[in-house]
């Protein structure tokens, strides 16, 4: 059942949160061993939450807009007392002493967090294959990846294990798995959602957002988690936008730009669906123009300097001194080295080395400094595009879900999975992936709608048009 209807029925007392949770837990029990979606299921915590929601309803109190909705949390979101690993051995066994702002807001709205989902280690990857705890399988075809890095969260919603899930999107980590799993994923404007409690990968790019089976559910979830948080200075000062009330605004009169760089190199089945989406928007009253933003081609290379540079610093704290895993050695430097050697996987090490190099004296200007300039150009290019159009349209991912091992041998091929999603992160803007038709092997395809900062209401209304037309 979708989240909006479930919450409405729980609030009216027609169904209990405990019943909804039981359904969620039985879906998890049925397939989690096969799919490896959850790293940790918080049965006791979830059952207590569900009972609290039911008690509130029984006492005539309103538990909130997400009353009784089972939600899954990407395991890079801190949850007090509940294991949080970022899918890394280095954090194995760590239980945070505090809870992320987004999780607090979900719970305050009546939602019931059921557990922590698998991800690429420290969110570095596009297939969930870099997780230290094994890959997650795509519920639609267990021989294929669910995408990543938020593969577990996407799979949990696609497999009916949770009505909603939270992920984080640094270069496409919500939108790409949403596309590969056939669900809706939103990458909000940078600063719209508090990052407090999100284990950082690349701080200037990371943003938390929802996965849902419908555009309306995604809008409701985003409304709940958005809004200023005094614990995150980079969070926008404005209150959360109203999204659900604009869902039926449609696209009549909207100017939509179909961007050639956002379909370039995509498989034919993907391109065909993007074209069909453009036609659907036109049929709903939008005016579609074709345009080119050549700067978008620079996104991937700039991203693979900026994100690793920030990561190399963000991940320095995992040294075995204070928390998480420690590999004993005779002296401090050796202990740090042994801990990090055994604690981090290959992809994480690769990015720490890339980032350390990019920031080093003598290389900074040529690499990191240059990437910052590209980022500025990207922001300017988007700004100019949004003088002509209200929204941009393109593919979310170049292909449908790929098979395990297909891209693990070639990091660059894996990095190309995010070529269409990265520019939005560099610009700090908003984008939505919405399922639209199917492609090879009957697997779902996601199309991507992009908008300027704080354009979520406009984007979700357009996504709703595609959802209906699909």
């Amino acid at each position: 059942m979708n989240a909006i209807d479930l919450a409405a029925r729980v609030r009216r007392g027609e169904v209990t949160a405990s019943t909804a949770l039981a359904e969620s837990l039985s879906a998890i029990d049925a397939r989690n061993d096969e799919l490896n979606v959850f790293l940790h299921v918080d049965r006791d915590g979830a059952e207590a939450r569900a009972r609290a929601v039911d008690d509130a309803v029984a006492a005539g109190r309103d538990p909130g807009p997400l009353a009784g909705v089972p939600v899954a949390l990407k395991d890079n979101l801190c949850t007090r007392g509940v294991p949080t690993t970022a899918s890394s051995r280095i954090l194995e066994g760590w239980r945070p002493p505090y809870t992320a702002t987004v999780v607090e807001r979900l719970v305050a709205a009546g939602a019931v967090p059921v557990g922590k989902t698998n991800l690429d280690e420290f969110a570095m990857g596009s297939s969930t294959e870099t997780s230290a705890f094994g890959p997650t399988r795509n519920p639609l075809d267990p021989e294929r990846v669910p995408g990543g890095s938020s593969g577990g969260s996407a799979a949990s919603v696609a497999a009916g294990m949770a009505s909603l899930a939270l992920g984080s999107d640094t270069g496409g980590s919500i939108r790409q798995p949403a596309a590969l799993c056939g669900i809706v994923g939103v990458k909000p404007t940078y600063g719209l959602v508090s990052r407090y409690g999100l284990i950082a990968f690349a701080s200037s790019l990371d943003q938390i957002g929802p996965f849902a089976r419908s555009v309306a559910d995604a809008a409701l979830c985003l409304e709940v988690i958005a809004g200023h948080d005094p614990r995150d200075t980079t969070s926008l000062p404005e209150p959360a936008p109203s999204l659900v009330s604009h869902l039926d605004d449609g696209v009549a009169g909207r100017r939509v730009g179909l961007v050639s760089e956002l379909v370039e190199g995509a498989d034919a089945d993907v391109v065909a669906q993007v074209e069909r989406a453009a036609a659907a928007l036109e049929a709903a009253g939008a005016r579609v123009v074709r345009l080119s933003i050549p700067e978008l081609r620079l996104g991937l290379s700039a991203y693979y300097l900026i994100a690793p540079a920030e990561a190399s610093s963000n991940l320095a704290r995992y040294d075995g001194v204070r928390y998480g895993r420690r590999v004993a050695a005779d002296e401090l430097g050796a202990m740090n080295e042994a801990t990090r050697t055994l604690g981090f996987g290959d992809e994480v090490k690769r990015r720490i080395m890339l980032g350390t190099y990019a920031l080093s004296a003598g290389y900074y200007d040529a690499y990191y400094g240059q990437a910052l300039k590209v980022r500025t150009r990207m922001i300017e290019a988007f700004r100019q595009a949004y003088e002509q159009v209200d929204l941009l349209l393109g593919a979310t991912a170049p292909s449908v879900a790929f098979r395990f091992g297909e891209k693990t041998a070639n990091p660059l091929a894996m990095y190309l999975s995010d070529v269409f999603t990265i520019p939005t992160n560099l610009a700090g803007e908003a984008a939505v992936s919405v399922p639209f038709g199917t492609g090879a092997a009957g697997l779902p395809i996601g199309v991507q709608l992009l908008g300027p900062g704080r354009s979520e209401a406009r984007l979700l209304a357009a996504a709703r048009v595609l959802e209906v037309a699909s």
Partner: protein
Amino acid sequence: MTAGWEMVVGLEVHTELRTATKLFCSCANEFGAAPNTHVCPVCLGLPGSLPVLNERAVEMAMSIGFALHCTVAPSTFHRKNYFYPDMPKNFQISQYDLPINSSGYLDLPDGSRVGIERAHLEEDTGKSTHLGTSGRLHGAQRSLVDYNRAGVPLVEIVSAPDIRSAAQARLYVAELRRVLIATGASDGRMEEGSLRVDANVSVRRPGEPFGTRCEIKNLNSLRSLQRAIDYEADRQIELIEDGGAVRQETRHWDETTGVTSTMRVKEEAEDYRYFREPDLVDLAPDEAWRDRVAAALPPMPGVRRTALLQHLEDPTDAQRESVEVVLDLDLDRYVHGAAEAGLDAATALARTANEVAAAEEGAERLTVEAFVGTLRLEASGQLSATQAKTVLADLLAEGGAPEDVVARRGFTQLASDALGGVVDEVIAANGDEWARYRDGDDKLAQFFIGQVMARTRGQANGKAVVEILRSRRG
């Protein structure tokens, strides 16, 4: 300093700010608590935590900037990356190319001026204790870390290489300390580590370009600062005169042996990989805020010193020292009050730097009016110097008006004819001394004053006694 050589010194002073809470979280900024009791996810750098800048720390940093005549400008934060176990995130949040304060100066009491290159905000690290014989991280059997200090706000004040002697370096730090205390931003306690100094020292022949410098660490007092700089300059001169060259390095001062030794050479210096701190937004205090902070600044020690010295003609070294005591204890108002009332500023300065300064918290009870009143009674001869000091002591202990103390103590001085009688008695009783005094041995006046005081239980005015003695001498 060896003839024909000149030393060039620049100082980096770190001061902890006296905020109630840390720079990026709400943990208490308090020295001396049980280890790891003032910690939270933010200052422990736990995964997912984020820094939030302390507004009060920004105000204090701006105060320091204004007090040092700096340009106070919009600034940014950077990460300084290096691994050390007392630094929870393995990077320090600091300011790099755009510091909050830049291009200022500090005038020293000797009339010299030292440029201030920058005074920027950053977070402190935790404190390590290394167990084992070495006392340092290397070779320690066990290391313990207290993170109470991690995230405490610091301002690092970097001077220009304008200092030319160890004594001037000491003067600079002493004056800077007074300025920091005056702004309210620092308690200036070197012994608790809330004020820490590193010295960059090089030598050259006058007129030549700067030589290669060494940075001296572990300077925990003004005394070690002065000794270490002198030692280091001599070491460099000797090295060059022996045909060697100074190597750029960081050196450790050993207070016990009185020598500096190599900690690390420049080739081993870390690459800090500075980049903008993405978790913090730019710091751009608006003009109104900056104006408010500047306006709230009390007068600085330099200005106050000039104002106090203005009352004195050609001040002696002792008077200059008294002025420093008055400045340090914030007692200027007594000297100014007396001088404005037309009383002798030298006496007022002496009474303030001695009697008033000696009374703990006495200044809270002694009004300027009562102080001036007491000095006026002394000047008019109604009180002897001894009596005036006693009156001040009572006022400092209990407050009140000098007239009441005088009445209670019965300090009504002898009328001059009665005093004349006492003087005559003393002359009669001390014939030999009188004869020598009469023959011109003025030193004996003190003897007679003493005798008269003894007979009057201190109620005579010393000056009046001398006048009577002179008149008797004829």
